[in-house]
């Protein structure tokens, strides 16, 4: 447990009566009750401290618990929360918990005692804090005064306290390797090593400065450091969850990050673009794409129909945005406050929903991201084509109307003496015919009067004349079925195939494809006189047919598979619907001339469509499709979206309201404004973003941050190894106008960075992990560095810093995805999941 100096901060203004009578009253009437009924949950000895309230010292009740204020106001019983809970005047806080109310006489004693001024002789500090409050170190403003003016000053002073010192400078060959990997993620070439070693002999400082400047100017700097950032913001090019669909138009964000690092874009601007790039940069793709940050995380798109599940999925989707934002920029685990007040940090559950209110309009998806010029050019290229197309479609419609009118008349006049087809079994008898091949040509289905594609067939039978009559179409009798299918299953080539229609089983269906023709080749020539088909599967339920059933058809036979003769059809059956009847007549009455006319106009429409398709489309990017929320945001009680609590306005989290200027927007503020307001609050006078960012920069240079939990600066996170240095770096960052490259330069040219990595027993004994930096801490190469090293030394690396493809990479700003032969890709999302909590 980390002991903090929280106690004693809240001490003023309490009048105390120390007279002996008061103390005696406390000892006789109050202390025994506290000990018996309260200490179980509210003392240093409590197994589980409740409400962060200690009642075993005076300091405990003066400090108060989760309510944040003293629970006893001396002299004012009615204003004392403690007494109100004893009186059961506080909903949900009736005390003692899960026990009977104390006798009225005892409660009256408490009132008397408080009226006396609550004399309490129990000295002592509040037991070691079990959580942080607003005095927590990371929630304080950045220091302004520093004991040193260079990085090395802070490091060597701390080392000296531990009786240690820096290592001597690193060998130049080791240094150029270290720095190359660190800054650009690639090894130096042998020639570069030799050149640097020679220059270093002549002028160590000059050569090193030149090296730092060369590396920071390299386009590979953005790849290397952009990669770190992409990890921080849980970037992945697939959506995770059940489907893990590849998102192949999120790469512009990746390129945007690399470009921003290479351009040394001020980070405050970068943060605003992440949260509201589309708001501040509408029409400027280079800025708009920044807001893809919001939607670069996993989300569940499985299409759940269950309303409760939908609400939970939506909550989880926004939780990802909240978690990513608070972790990346604030170093706070705000997500822990989703179901209750944060257990360790002073983050009320309302803060979580304040952030949710900011993101309430975020929706995952893609939309056109282009300049006004690009849009104008696209419109100019497509408008004439669309006009031509509309004219052709009008021509076709006129023709169709005329044909349909005739078909309607014919349908009204048609006599259809035979019954409707039935999905549970339809039979056609015909004059016995010799056949080696039987064809079932389908024209319509129960779902579509114009075509039978996508219909389904469980079984198709062809019966011989007999006796005995046999189903000669059965596969078991040697028949074969051919036909297109409309569905496939990756690793079941036979699934949904036409063979299922002649397998003699009522289980699986053939999914009819295009053309909708089933051709059955019999084992031998047969005399056939009857077919049946069905789409009903089993007798389990009332609604037996699965999917659409063919309704209109011809049955044809052939001896050679080339010449076909129609022996039966659906003609004369009651049509499945009025529309089916009209379509059937339409097929009959269409003249050859009309057929040609229709074909011609359709061909011309298709030609225009091809031209339209040839116009390069406006670029769509997965930047999200924000939409104004229809409802206010509510606290979800216990994190359950089915239990809305009080409404919460889009406003600044209260956790920092002592050190930052708060804001509050109306509940129905435009959603873009909400994100923009949050972004401005992050970069205005907020100490956390620069502190968290400076720590990340340090972390990637030295392997471990000054705070070793870079996304958790709260009570459960690590404490800074060099608190003053951390603020110094944050101040330097601000002094550099939020630009990283000058900060890198200061770090890279520090003696601390330039020292050797050599192992020393005395250092390891005191500081095994070298957190105090008595040596440069060695680190493992990352997978990307190993891969890129292989490519570079093999001469296979391409020079490009960006790629539109998700599947191949010149240099690794990402891990190339492995698409398994029988499965979804996993690599991307697995990579981005590391920062998830709760």
């Amino acid at each position: 447990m980390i002991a903090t100096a929280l106690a004693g901060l809240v001490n003023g203004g309490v009048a105390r009566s120390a007279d002996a009578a008061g103390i005696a009253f406390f000892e006789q009437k109050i202390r025994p009750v506290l000990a018996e009924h309260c200490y179980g949950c509210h003392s240093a000895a409590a197994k589980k401290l409740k409400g962060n309230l200690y009642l075993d010292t005076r300091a405990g009740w003066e400090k108060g618990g989760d309510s944040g204020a003293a629970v006893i106001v001396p002299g004012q019983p009615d204003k004392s929360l403690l007494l109100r809970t004893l009186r059961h005047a506080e909903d949900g806080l009736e005390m003692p918990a899960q026990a009977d109310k104390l006798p009225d006489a005892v409660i009256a004693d408490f009132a008397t005692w408080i009226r006396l001024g609550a004399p309490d002789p129990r000295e002592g500090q509040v037991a070691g804090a079990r959580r942080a409050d607003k005095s927590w170190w990371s929630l304080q403003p950045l220091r302004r005064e520093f004991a040193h003016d260079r990085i090395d000053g802070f490091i060597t002073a701390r080392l000296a306290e531990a009786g240690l010192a820096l290592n001597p400078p690193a060998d130049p060959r080791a240094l150029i390797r270290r720095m190359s990997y660190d800054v650009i993620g690639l090894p130096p070439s042998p020639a570069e090593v030799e050149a640097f070693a020679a220059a270093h002999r002549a002028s160590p400082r000059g050569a090193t400065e030149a090296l730092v400047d060369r590396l920071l100017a390299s386009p590979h700097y953005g790849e290397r450091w952009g990669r770190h950032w992409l990890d921080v913001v849980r970037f992945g090019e697939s959506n995770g969850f059940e489907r893990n669909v590849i998102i192949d138009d999120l790469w512009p964000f990746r390129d945007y990050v690399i470009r921003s690092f290479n351009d040394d874009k001020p980070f405050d601007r970068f943060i605003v673009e992440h949260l509201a790039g589309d708001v501040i940069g509408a029409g400027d793709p280079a800025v708009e794409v920044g807001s893809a940050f919001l939607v670069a995380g996993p989300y569940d798109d499985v299409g759940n129909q269950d309303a409760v599940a939908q609400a939970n999925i939506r909550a989880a989707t926004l939780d990802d945005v909240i978690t990513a934002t608070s972790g990346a920029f604030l170093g706070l685990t705000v997500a822990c406050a989703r179901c209750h007040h944060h257990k360790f940090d002073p983050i009320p559950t309302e803060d979580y929903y304040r952030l949710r209110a900011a993101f309430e309009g975020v929706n995952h998806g893609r939309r056109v991201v282009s300049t006004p010029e690009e849009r104008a050019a696209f419109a100019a290229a497509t408008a004439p084509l669309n006009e031509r197309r509309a004219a052709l479609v009008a021509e076709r419609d006129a023709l169709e109307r005329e044909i349909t009118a005739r078909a309607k008349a014919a349908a009204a006049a048609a006599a259809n003496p035979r019954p409707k087809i039935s999905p549970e079994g339809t039979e056609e008898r015909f004059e016995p015919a010799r056949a080696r091949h039987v064809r079932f040509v389908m024209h319509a289905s129960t779902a579509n009067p114009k075509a039978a594609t996508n219909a389904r067939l469980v079984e198709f039978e062809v019966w011989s004349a007999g006796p005995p009559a046999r189903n000669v179409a059965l596969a078991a009798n040697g028949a074969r079925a051919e036909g297109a299918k409309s569905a496939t299953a990756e690793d079941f080539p036979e699934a949904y195939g036409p063979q299922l229609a002649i397998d003699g089983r009522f289980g699986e269906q053939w999914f009819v494809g295009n053309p909708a023709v089933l051709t059955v080749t019999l084992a031998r020539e047969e005399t056939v006189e009857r077919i049946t088909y069905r789409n009903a599967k089993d007798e389990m339920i009332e609604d037996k047919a699965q999917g659409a059933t063919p309704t209109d058809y011809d049955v044809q036979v052939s001896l050679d598979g080339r010449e076909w003769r129609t022996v039966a059809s659906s003609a004369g059956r009651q049509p499945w619907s009025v529309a089916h009847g009209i379509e059937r007549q339409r097929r009959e009455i269409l003249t050859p001339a009309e057929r040609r006319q229709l074909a011609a106009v359709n061909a011309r429409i298709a030609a225009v469509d091809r031209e339209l398709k040839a116009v390069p489309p406006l670029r769509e990017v997965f930047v999200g499709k924000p939409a104004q929320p229809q409802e206010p945001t509510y606290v979800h009680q216990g994190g359950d979206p089915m239990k809305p609590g009080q409404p919460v306005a889009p406003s600044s989290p209260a956790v920092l309201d002592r050190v930052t200027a708060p804001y509050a927007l109306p509940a129905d503020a435009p959603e873009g404004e909400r994100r923009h307001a949050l972004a401005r609050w992050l970069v205005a006078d907020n100490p956390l973003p620069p502190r968290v960012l400076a720590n990340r920069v340090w972390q990637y240079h030295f392997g471990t941050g000054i705070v070793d939990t870079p996304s958790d600066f709260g009570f459960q996170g690590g404490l800074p190894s060099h608190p003053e240095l951390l603020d110094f770096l944050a101040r330097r960052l601000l002094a550099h106008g939020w630009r990283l490259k000058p900060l890198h330069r200061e770090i890279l040219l520090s003696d601390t960075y330039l020292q050797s990595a050599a192992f020393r027993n005395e250092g390891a004994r005191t500081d095994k992990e070298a957190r105090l930096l008595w040596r440069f801490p060695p680190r493992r190469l990352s997978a990307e560095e190993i891969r890129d090293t292989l490519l570079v030394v093999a001469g296979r690396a391409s020079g490009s810093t960006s790629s539109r493809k998700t599947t191949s990479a010149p240099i690794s700003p990402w891990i190339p995805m492995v698409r398994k032969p029988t499965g979804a890709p996993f690599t991307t999302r697995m990579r981005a999941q590391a920062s998830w909590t709760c």
Partner: protein
Amino acid sequence: MTGLDHTRRAFLGDMTKGMAGVALSRLLVRDLVATPRTPHFPPKAKQVLQIFCPGGASHVDLWDYKPMLEKYHGTPLPGAATEVTFQGKNGNLMRSPWAFRPAGQSGKMISSLLPRMAAHVDDIAFIHSMTSRTNTHGPGCIAMNTGFPREGFPSAGSWVSYALGSLNENLPTYVAVQDLRGEPPNGKANWGNGFLPAQYQAVALAAHQPLRNLARPASVDPAAEQATRDFLHAINAEHAGARPGSDELQARMSAYELAAKMQLAAPDVSDLAREPGHVHALYGTNDANALKAAYARNCLLSRRLLEKGVRYVSLYCASRASAVDGLLNWDAHKTLKADYERHAPIFDQPTAALLADLKQRGLLQDVLVIWCSEFGRMPTHQEGTAGRDHNPDAFTTWMMGAGVKGGVSHGATDEFGRRSAVDVTTVYDFYATVLRLLGLEHEKLTYYHNGANRRLTDVHGHVIDRILA
């Protein structure tokens, strides 16, 4: 970077400069070797065999007998006639297409779809009151395996490997045996290490898919390989000699040795040809149904792995959701009868054979068998179909073997199987019980990550005492 004109020697030179220069001692930190560790109290079980039937295996058609479904078949589910679940609206109650029959001394009612599994009911402790927080396969599978419906958390097998280490230094501690049809929903996250060190993830292995990149290429001479290893060992030892007292370095060196030993041991354990014919016949490894034969071989492989001391084997029967529900796994949305008459025969004989084989060899003294699926299915049919939709509110899991009382049932669903009603159980209770059997206190098995002491059982979990022997 442009191409450099390289000789092989320069290439290797660059490689070693590039890698070794930066990396070194960090490479050597707390790594790979997972030696056995002591549990919190004396364990009943030392190993775990997990059998996972992905897709949402229907409790009311396999394990959970609901006579009321028979009686009220074709009528609306009382009070929920128009319920909308995962895929949409539900129709009326639908009886199981298969009769349930009493089995064993305990007379447990079991679906006639599983005639051979019925022989084991007296050794099984059923948990009929399971519930899940999600109705979606991917999240459901990882919730059943990690306790969380989101990726990023360690699977139970990883937790157990982390807690107890290896029993056989020549083989992986944790093996995931996947189905011929492919990975389960959400794939590798089901056996991932989450935030635990990577050494605790499962090694994926199956009878049809031996360990990858394990064999020595034919072009490499065995003597040369041995000589290389000896040389490596020599320079490692020299390096270690210059750094006295570095046990991490020693650990790292043994990790490389392990890889070499595994090269010999792994092909041996997965060589099913060493098994006699009657064993193959018992499992059905030569069945005409290729999927059944493949699963049977995986069952046999699992037994061999357990016999050799692999700590945790996750055996999958079926794979992910396919374009059409119910084809590749137990997700019978539309055609329950056809689907389960495909899946049950694949599952029944090989699983029953594996259990019988474990028992007859005395392996159930040490091996805890757990069976799971990510959720159950609705007692109603899905509107317009003869299948059932997802049901996270009720499903069955079971345990058997070391430390488990046989022939008992814990918890119950309501009369139709729609919701768990008696002794409602969660995945946290399930794993609290598994950990207890392994001698671990679930509240004490923690790992600090991102500001929290994480547990397999999150902040929940009660041991199900009733099923402990």
